[in-house]
């Protein structure tokens, strides 16, 4: 680039506003360098909305600056919008400078997320001559903690947890040097001035610090001990992933008997010794967001209790310099699971972690950089070649780029499990990180704290709140306590609406919403729904034939109950004698009799059309899982039994037209009869699992053909089943349908908040206070 043309007689001054991911990514230094090279004068600064520039020079050079902003932005930046307006000159600029941040104005939704160490920092970490050699908190504008330590906007050191650390002379010099990678790196630190590592015993007393602390942790893990480690967004519990006994101890202490545990490998090479990864998987694994990636694998040679009876293992690579150092020393992979007791949110405060994890961990590897906003590890997989997030948190939150606009001033409270919260602001929709389940006091406190702090951060206080129809969800109660206008969005409508919002669909869609259960418009439990959604409203086109769930919520924990419910619908009292069936013999005879009476009388035996419960029933009948210790266990174990190379036998579901105006009904009876016949002839579990999955996919195709909508949406927790999702997508596409599913947002209840918000805010765009929309139902 050449120097500015000094002969140019007419200097222009432009005010340029840049929107997108432009803070905490080295954007201002980039602008500074570009402007200086072009010989422009003026300034650049952060504002709550993004980056503001005032630049003066020849129009041609100003154009060049804008083109550079658009095409040469730093790797981690994302420029969504550039707006330039001429402004009146008032006094001359002497040079180009970087300005301190502005505090007024509306807030942009794109904030820097928390990222794994960049290649430069990793290089420095390993360079004995570098002053940050082996410093566990090394970072720069391209990497490190950001959202997790943000107290307020704009994103300046004074508004982050780093305000507790006074920069040393050398760090300050880098921070102020526009040529440095650490120019305005708000979390920058070094061994002289930054956070320190400590190792503590289970009682929380500091034993050693710095390198010695790391060594202590290495020793503990090598000896099969459980280590609580303070990561980027919260505490993790680590244990040697090769040591089944140590893993078992963790399971017992965490009260998590079966739920799969994620494994962290020291490097991609270490992981590839166990399983070859595809390029899409590698991209996900090594990306700066550093999620847990679910990989299908037959065997891994590690402890056999990492993901009992499942075909997928969650793996990740180091997400902080601290993890890099630790894994580098260890030389073996470790289990890395959220630092919490089962069902509770992740611990992130040192005191709190000591209290809550003291009974679980044998030692703590901690530091003194506070975490302001807790973030779980994100969970992702590759579906049909695309990223699919199953849990959206560290690395991704709070940014969400949506091709859809919701009217601002809305909040959505989400579901009861895997809860997230959504807010609509003037500049877009914000989705909170994964908040976990609302069954614990800590989970509920976290919900309220998050609602509060997101509203403060984004300077919005929604008066309209969308929520689930279920009267007893904690989040329903909170939504009704917030704001003045409320809109109940049916659970499965929200599942479908979330996908519509994510992909910005305007066409009518056939939504296939399959999950465990959600409260339906007829006050029964839905979960096997085919819904039409269009701009006017929604309609329940078809649903699974309902059956009773003996014991209500107890049936969510015991797949055998779903089987009993189905058998009762098929055989009545006759089921009592059917002792060859595992779910029947799993109950004592007297219990069976009482259950049948309760089913007959409808005592705590709600009707459900849930496909999730159908999965439970088939898994129980196949003898796989009678009682579950985590949500979706039976379905996951059934999926793992699929023979992917096997013959494509499939069970058939009935599909019958309504007499009058009611929805079509899908009958599971022929499919269940098929399962029973196969059991009777001694078919293998894998035959049954395969035929059941294939039958469901076939059903989706048949229903799609029946209703002839070109756009098909797949949503709900059942589609976490990657076999079901993959084959449904493939088969629908083969038939010429356009298929959509959640990618950026969890397809499970973690996506409900977005769907609620999208649906409620869209329907209320005209400012109507009510949210009635046309639908018909039997």
């Amino acid at each position, binding site marked *: 680039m050449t120097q500015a043309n000094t002969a140019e007689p007419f200097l222009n001054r432009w005010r340029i506003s840049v929107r997108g991911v432009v803070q905490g990514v080295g954007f201002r230094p980039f602008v500074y360098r570009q402007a200086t090279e072009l010989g422009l004068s003026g300034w650049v600064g952060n504002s709550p909305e993004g980056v503001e520039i005032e630049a003066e020079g020849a129009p041609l050079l100003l154009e060049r600056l804008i083109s550079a902003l658009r095409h040469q932005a730093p790797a981690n930046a994302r420029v969504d919008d550039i707006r330039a307006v001429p402004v009146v000159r008032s006094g001359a600029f002497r040079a180009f400078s970087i300005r301190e941040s502005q505090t007024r104005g509306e807030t942009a939704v794109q904030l820097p997320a928390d990222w794994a160490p960049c290649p430069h920092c990793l290089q420095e970490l390993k360079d004995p001559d570098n002053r940050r050699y082996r410093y566990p908190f090394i970072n720069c504008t391209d990497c490190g903690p950001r959202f997790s330590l943000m107290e307020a906007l704009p994103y300046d050191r004074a508004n982050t947890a780093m305000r507790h650390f006074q920069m040393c002379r050398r760090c300050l010099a880098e921070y102020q040097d526009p040529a440095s990678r650490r120019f305005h790196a708000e979390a920058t630190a070094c061994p002289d001035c930054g956070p320190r590592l400590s190792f503590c015993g289970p009682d929380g007393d500091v034993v050693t610090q710095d390198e010695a602390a790391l060594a202590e942790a290495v020793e503990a893990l090598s000896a099969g001990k459980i280590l609580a480690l303070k990561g980027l967004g919260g505490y993790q519990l680590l244990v040697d992933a090769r040591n089944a006994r140590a893993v078992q101890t963790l399971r017992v202490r965490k*009260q998590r008997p079966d739920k799969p545990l994620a494994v962290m490998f020291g490097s991609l090479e270490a992981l590839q010794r166990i399983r070859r990864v595809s390029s899409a998987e590698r991209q996900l694994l090594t990306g700066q967001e550093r999620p847990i990636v679910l990989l299908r694998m037959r065997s891994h040679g590690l402890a056999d209790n990492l993901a009992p009876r499942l075909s997928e293992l969650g793996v990740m690579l180091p997400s902080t310099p601290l993890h890099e150092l630790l894994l580098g020393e260890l030389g073996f992979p470790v289990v890395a699971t959220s630092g919490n*007791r089962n*069902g509770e949110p992740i611990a992130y405060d040192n005191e709190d972690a000591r209290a809550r994890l003291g009974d679980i961990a044998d030692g703590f590897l901690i530091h003194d950089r506070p975490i302001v906003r807790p973030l779980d590890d994100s969970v992702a997989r590759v579906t049909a070649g695309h990223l699919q997030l199953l849990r959206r948190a560290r690395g991704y939150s709070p940014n969400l780029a949506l091709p859809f606009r919701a009217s601002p001033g809305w909040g959505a409270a989400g*579901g*009861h*499990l*895997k809860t997230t919260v959504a807010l609509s602001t003037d500049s877009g929709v914000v989705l909170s990180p994964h908040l976990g389940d609302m*069954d*614990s*006091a800590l989970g*509920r*406190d976290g919900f309220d704290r998050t609602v509060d702090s997101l509203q403060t951060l984004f300077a919005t206080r929604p008066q309209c709140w969308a929520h689930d129809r*279920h*009267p*007893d*969800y*904690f989040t329903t109660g909170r939504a009704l306590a917030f704001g003045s206008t409320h809109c109940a969005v049916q*659970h499965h409508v929200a599942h479908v609406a979330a996908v519509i919002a994510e992909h910005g669909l305007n066409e009518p869609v056939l939504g296939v919403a399959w*999950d*465990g*259960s*959600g*409260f339906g418009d007829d006050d029964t*439990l839905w979960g096997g729904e085919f819904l039409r959604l269009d701009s006017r409203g929604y309609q329940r086109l078809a649903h699974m034939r309902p059956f009773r*769930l*003996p*014991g*209500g*919520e*107890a*049936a*969510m*924990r015991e797949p055998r*109950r779903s089987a009993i419910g189905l058998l009762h619908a098929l055989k009545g009292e006759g089921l009592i004698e059917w002792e060859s069936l595992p779910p029947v013999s799993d109950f004592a005879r*007297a*219990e069976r*009799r*009482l*259950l049948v*009476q*309760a089913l007959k*009388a409808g*005592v*705590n035996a*709600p009707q459900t059309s849930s496909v*999730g419960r159908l999965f439970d029933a088939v898994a129980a009948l196949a003898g796989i899982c009678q009682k579950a210790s985590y*949500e979706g266990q039976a379905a996951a174990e059934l999926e793992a039994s699929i023979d992917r190379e096997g013959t494509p036998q499939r069970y058939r579901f009935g599909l019958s037209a309504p007499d009058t105006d009611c929805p079509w009904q899908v009958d599971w009876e022929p499919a269940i009869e098929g399962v029973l016949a196969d059991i009777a002839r001694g078919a293998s579990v894998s035959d049954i699992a395969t035929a059941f999955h294939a039958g469901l996919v076939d059903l989706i195709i048949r229903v799609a053909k029946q209703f002839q909508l070109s756009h098909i949406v797949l949503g709900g*927790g059942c589609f976490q089943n990657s076999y079901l999702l993959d084959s449904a997508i493939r088969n629908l596409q083969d038939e010429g349908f356009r298929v959509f599913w959640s990618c950026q947002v969890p397809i*499970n*209840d973690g996506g409900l908040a977005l769907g609620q918000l999208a649906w409620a805010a869209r329907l209320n765009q005209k400012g109507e206070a009510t949210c009635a929309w046309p639908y018909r139902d039997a």
Partner: protein
Amino acid sequence: MAHGGGGRATARLLDSLFRPAFDNPWLERQHDGAVLDMAGAMAFTTDSYVVRPLFFPGSDIGAMAVHGTVNDLAMCGAEPQYLSAGFILEEGLPLTTLRQVIDSMASAARKAGVRIVTGDLKVVERGKADGLYINTAGVGRIVAADPVEPGQVRSGDRVLLSGDIGRHGIAVMAAREKLDLESAIESDCASIASPVLALLHEGIAVRCLRDLTRGGLASGLVEVAETAGLAARIQEADIPVREDVSAVCELLGLDPLHVANEGRFMAVVAPEDVDRALAILRCHRVSKAAVEIGRFQEGRAGQVTAESLIGGTRIVDRLSGEQLPRIC
């Protein structure tokens, strides 16, 4: 029973059934209403009883109609004194059934020390009143020196439970739905006035009383905590539930904390009074198994946390109507 207006048949019924059964001077006077001599603060309450079936193990609709209103008065810190009874009968209800109910009411009233001083009876068409409905209202003299209500509860106050829970709800449900239970579970339906009055007479600092009827212990705790603006914490292991009750609950997916009782209450007392209060309660048959189960404390208003045996905790919510699964 024949359907009719306020005619002679009704008068005959009152003469032949009620007056002798409830036997007291007010009824003998055959006036339009009872003239009562009352002074000072009074409590006044009413409730209607529509339980199905009319008779169930351990009790019946008649005794329930007396105990329910007597207990509501006691929960206000009052000594129950006078009751009214209104009956709505379905045409065709066997006279013997009515007589049984009336006798049960009379005996319940006698034991509770209250007089049924006025009443009413209507007969409606066949198919209309599901056999028999009863409404009772009651008045009682306030004996508590300080107000006894949720607003009085302070952080640190203790929760006492008068006995095992869940029997009434299960007994009625089993009878109504014709469930064959392995062991007979009888309703706990009873008057709880005497232990309550004893607490008050002995000067126990009773902050609040709550009978644990519909919605069970869970609703009682949540509602008191909500009004008091406090949280509550209970130890699940300390809550007495009979083994057969908990087995049925587990199989049917019911939470004993949500099951209705008709002779159980919780008393919230100052921490220093716990031992004395328990000693007093245990002197009375209906509360001989009284225990301390937890406390109120600062926290989210209305949030009740139960500590389980194995050290975990769960939140006890008040649920709307049926226990609808929330797990997706």
